[in-house]
């Protein structure tokens, strides 16, 4: 929920840029405006524009009234769960039950697809922009924020993990229809 950039609303050219990087690196790191005083916090907060949040406030010196030793000493381990995981349902046509996976643990499509293949014991085939997933009866798809079913792999990884609501491995004729000039 935190730090989402409104890709779907803006003509955000940066969003369609293909980039390498770990999940979450798409977050813009804007400098907090007019940070006055020697605030010793090690990392700046990212002040993303959010549909509901007001514009970023200027950091007020000495507010909230926390002593600097306390600011320096407490360093939350943000690598732990809670705000980190992006858990989505993964279904496979014909499988008796669904799985849940954390998109954040994968660094890109190859890793994700490999994990999915291992989970359901099948082969996905090779991705190409023109023809979708060739050489297999299966196509990995996902439901995006708008409720549309999209082929996995078309958009940059970072954009994918924020817009993906659930994953579905389509099988058979339905799968073959995808990615062919649609």
């Amino acid at each position, binding site marked *: *929920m*935190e*730090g989402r950039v409104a890709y779907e609303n803006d003509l955000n050219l940066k969003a369609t840029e293909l980039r390498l990087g770990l999940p979450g690196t798409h977050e813009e790191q804007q400098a907090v405006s007019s940070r006055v*005083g*020697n*605030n010793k*916090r090690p990392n700046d*907060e990212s002040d993303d524009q*959010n549909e509901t*949040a007001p514009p*970023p*406030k200027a*950091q*007020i*010196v*000495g*507010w*909230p*009234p*926390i*002593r*600097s*030793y*306390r*600011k*320096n*000493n*407490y360093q*939350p*381990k943000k690598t732990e769960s*809670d705000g980190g995981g992006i858990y989505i349902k993964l279904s496979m046509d014909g499988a008796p039950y669904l799985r849940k996976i954390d998109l954040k643990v994968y660094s890109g499509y190859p890793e994700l697809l490999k994990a999915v293949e291992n989970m359901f014991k099948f082969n996905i085939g090779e991705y190409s922009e023109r023809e979708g997933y060739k050489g297999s009866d299966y196509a990995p798809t996902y439901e995006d924020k708008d409720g549309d079913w999209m082929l996995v792999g078309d958009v940059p990884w970072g954009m994918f993990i924020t817009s993906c609501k659930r994953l579905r491995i389509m099988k058979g004729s339905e799968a073959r229809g995808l990615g062919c000039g649609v």
Partner: protein
Amino acid sequence: MESFELKRSKDSVNSDQSAHWSSFPDEVLERVLSRLKSHRDRSSASLVCKDWYHAERWSRTNVFIGNCYSVSQEIVVRRFSRIRSVTLKGKPRFSDFNLVPENWGANIHAWLVVFAAKYPFLEELRLKRMAINDQSLEFLAVSFPNFKALSLLSCDGFSTNGLAAIATHCKNLTELDIQENDIDDIGGSWLSCFPESFTSLEVLNFANLTSDINFDALEKLVGRCKSMRVLKLNRSVSLEQLQRLLVNAPRLAELGTGSFSQELIVREYEELESALSNCKNMHTLSGLWDAKGIYLPALYPACTHLTFLNLSYAALQSLELAKLLPHRRRLKHLWVLDTVEDKGLEAVGLNCPLLEELRVFPADPFDDEIVHGVTDAGFVAVSFGCPRLHYVLYFCRQMTNAAVATIVQNCPDFTHFRLCIMNPGQPDHLTNEPMDEAFGAVVKTCTKLQRLSVSGRLTDRTFEYIGRYAKNLETLSVAFAGSSDWGMQCVLGGCPKLRKLEIRDCPFGNAALLSGLEKYESMRSLWMSACNVTMNGCRLLAREMPRLNIEVMKEDGSDDSQADKVYVYRSIAGPRRDAPRSVLTL
């Protein structure tokens, strides 16, 4: 120090009556008065008559100076000749939040030089918000052969080299308490400066230091100081090292652990648990950096008599706190991070009926987008379960007037009520009204209230309530509040016991400042920053009240006529001579 002025007038009045009073031989009077421990009692006693004044000053061994600039070293040593213990406080409290320029003053050195001459048998020095450098620490270490206890709280200017000097030279040291200072931590070798023959240490607190310490030296030190009762480690000490220390110090009454999250195998975990459970005297526990719920059960056996639990460095979740608390029904003081959320505070309300003090610190105070933390609900839950609650420090992101009214109805005995709604000027989140009625309820219901910090959107109404009802209020902190001069005038006109008033970012101007003319001499100090006070207003105050020191600190690039930061305090020492150029004394 209020007694000085009054003493001069009393002398003439009491000279006839002194014959009546001095039927006690001086020695008896001194003996009796030496039993008085409280500074206020001693001040009162010294005002009775000349004989009592002298008997008191000869029998006093402990002097407390709440503002180091309110009196001069010469006056202190002239009045008291037998001092063994000195407590000195320096900078205004807002220096903790970077509002005071760095070189403002409050340097201890001049005091040490005078003490070395007049109190060579000085044993204890307790400093708060003073500037102290390594040379001063070294001077201290070599000048007082009987020196026993050093406590530095919120001080700055020194490094671990200074601590090394103390360790090297103070042969009789019983207490070294280094808390929350801005210290230049060069490394942990200072611990090895305690000589092999040194065994007297009872209190050692270096939790504030960040670098690795010489563990070998620490282990040997703890091993040979058999009377150690307070040990507060820093984060660099691991669980395994903690266990080794505890084996040698089972009589500890207060323990501050180091980092509480090492990977332990079963045997190591059991050894830790066993070492902790041997500490049958432990009543205070702190530290617990990085503590994970999984290791907290190791603490359970040690904590049966725990009265103070400081979890403010351990980002516990609500469930972890809820599991920890049922074993701790005797808790009187609890400090936590707001990661425990309202559910965690519900557990507090259910399990800690004897709770007297609660402090909830924010884990992420600067992140506006955080939706976690604690709210009005958590505070209300605690109040229902803890009727004895009288001290609270609560950082939250939302509060309601109704909640506060309920809270003080459940806990009418508040002496310290410090509520910080972190978004400045935020109204009641349900009704969107100002938070006036909340603080109105506090001052009306809690007649014993001594200290109050207000926050949220507040109009002058809040200050009308405070002035009218807060008869025992001594300290008031105000930020981003009020509508006009009238608010501050209400406080200065009411609140008979007001001693410290600190205000920032409020629409109070000269009229408000000047309405307190008579009041400031009965107060320790006034701080006003980012208000509407001008240089002319300050000059007028300085002219009318020559026995007040008026200091103005200007911000870079601000209007010449504005008095950005004003610090007013009474003093019998006159204007200070060590102010830096950025501080104007009027």
